[in-house]
């Protein structure tokens, strides 16, 4: 048994090293590329750039559509997570607490938007939106992103509604709690984690979404991913692509690390509710 444990520790260490290269190297390269100086290009066969500076960052910031794309992306994401939350709350409440007939079926349908190929959905939603005048509009993009946000939001909210022990709700009722107080003092605090996680998840997914923004927004509304697409495609520019990639990725990762901390430190509903 000891031997087995040793082997798995060795495996684990090797695995950690591979992991470091696997994740670290690509990110490191992107950071390097974004720091290449405007006047001293980095080209084959140099192993590393000769000079590093933020000059490309300030150039990209001042002379490309980056600022506008960021405003568009963040506005869309904010609206999307707000409306997705609004639409998903009642549905998740019923799915989580009332166990309606056909629950499995409804849950499956709610998952479909992220299971079906994104480009197919994007193309045909675009087709429908064209005929009702919703393409080339922020509203259209938000409507599309809500569709892709609902699967994540309803899942997270439904499971946090489910995890409230029925006894706790009964106890609150037994103590004469009115409807409004029930919502704000019992339900909300107890689904808080699902609520936060859902909103942030949908926000990040919206920031990252490409297909719908590409079909519904371009050329009027450029989001960060569609802008990246142009710098990776017909306008190939490795440095700009690096900068946009970092802008797209780093805030998301920071947010995720922050909430992971928060979720760990705050209490979990189950631990306190006893075994029953």
């Amino acid at each position, binding site marked *: 048994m000891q031997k087995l444990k040793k082997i798995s520790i060795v495996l684990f260490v090797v695995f950690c090293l591979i992991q470091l290269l696997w994740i670290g190297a690509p990110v490191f390269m992107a950071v390097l590329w974004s720091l290449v100086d405007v006047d001293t290009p980095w080209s084959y066969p140099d192993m590393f750039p000769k000079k590093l500076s933020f000059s490309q960052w300030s150039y990209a910031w001042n002379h490309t559509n980056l600022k506008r794309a960021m405003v568009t992306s963040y506005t869309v994401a904010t609206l999307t997570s707000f409306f997705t939350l609004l639409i998903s709350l009642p549905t998740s409440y019923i799915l989580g607490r009332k166990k309606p007939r056909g629950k499995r079926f409804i849950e499956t349908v709610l998952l479909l938007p992220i299971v079906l190929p994104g480009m197919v959905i994007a193309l045909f939603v675009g087709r429908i939106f064209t005929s009702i005048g919703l393409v080339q509009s922020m509203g259209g993009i938000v409507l599309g992103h809500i569709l892709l946000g609902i699967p994540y939001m309803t899942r997270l909210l439904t499971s946090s509604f489910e995890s409230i022990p029925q006894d706790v709700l009964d*106890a609150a*009722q*037994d103590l004469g709690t009115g409807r409004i107080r029930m919502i704000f003092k019992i339900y909300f605090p107890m689904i808080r984690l699902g609520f936060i996680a859902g909103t942030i998840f949908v926000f990040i997914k919206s920031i990252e979404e490409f297909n719908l923004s590409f079909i519904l927004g371009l050329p009027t509304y450029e989001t960060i991913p569609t802008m990246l697409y142009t710098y990776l495609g017909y306008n190939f520019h490795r440095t700009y692509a690096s900068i946009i990639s970092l802008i797209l990725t780093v805030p998301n990762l920071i947010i995720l690390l922050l909430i992971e901390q928060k979720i760990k430190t705050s209490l979990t509903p189950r631990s306190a509710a006893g075994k029953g």
Partner: protein
Amino acid sequence: MSKLKVSNLVKRFGSFTAVNKADFEVEAGTLVTLLGPSGCGKTTLLRSIAGFYCPDEGSIFFDGVKVDNIPPSRRNTSMCFQSYALFPHMSVWKNIAFGLENQKVPKAEIIERVAEVLRVVNLTGLEDRKPSQLSGGQQQRVALARALVTRPDIILFDEPLSNLDAKMRDQVRIEIRELQLSLGLTAVYVTHDQAEALSISDRIIVINEGKIQQAGAPQEIYDNPVNSFVAQFLGSANIHEGAVFEHMPDFTVIDSPLGRIRVPKNSLSPGSRVKFCWRPERTEFKIDPEHNVIKGNVIRRVFMGNLLEVFFTVNNQPVKVQAPCWIPDEKELSFSLSPESFILLKE
């Protein structure tokens, strides 16, 4: 007038009848236990009293007032849940104050009453803890305090001790009983543990398969079970069948697997079938020749510390008795049973 009256209550879930014509009353200031095996309908009955279930037939009265259509939030009952059901996101103080806030009790009074109830359940100083930071026994007492603080007409206990370890269980059981007596609370207590029921209750209601089997004071039920279910569920009992042989002036003689035995006088006609039981602890090993003397083969002896449990066969009928530790280690032993130790059962 009784504090709580349950009248002919029926509760069905689909085709399953969980409670079948339950009918009983609870006097003010007493603790009544609903005792039965799991799935017998006792919790359904308790939850109907709290208002979580609407009865299909029959009614429930508090102080003579029908409460069938009053939702749980407006019934003046408080329930102590098996899982405690504490609000995990609130401190101990908040948990206890919650019901009072619902009743819009003035802040100053809330502070006073919570402090008082914390003193009563011995939790002073833990006000700011979260439930997850408390031991099982402490959580149980918070649940109790939360139920007590609203001064309910009736307090309902749903197997409150089942999540505690054996030692805690004895201690908390005594605490609950003392509180109930000193505060004069009216309580309905659900349990499947006969020892718990016998020691805590003013009255016990034994339930099986949705039906009330017997109701009465603990001693009364223990000494005079009406049927074999009650006899076996409360304590242990040897049950036999026989037929009435003849009536004597002071007792009745029965033909049974134990031989021809004398039992308390009854009015059954000779020849009719009869079922009876007796408790293992009524066995006498200092044989009284005036009593029924029975001889049996020893199958197994189990040492229990203060006494022995001895398993016999008497005419191929298995019999369990309690014996003092000094009895001789022999294959064949005799013991005696007084006529009064036999109890006739209805079924």
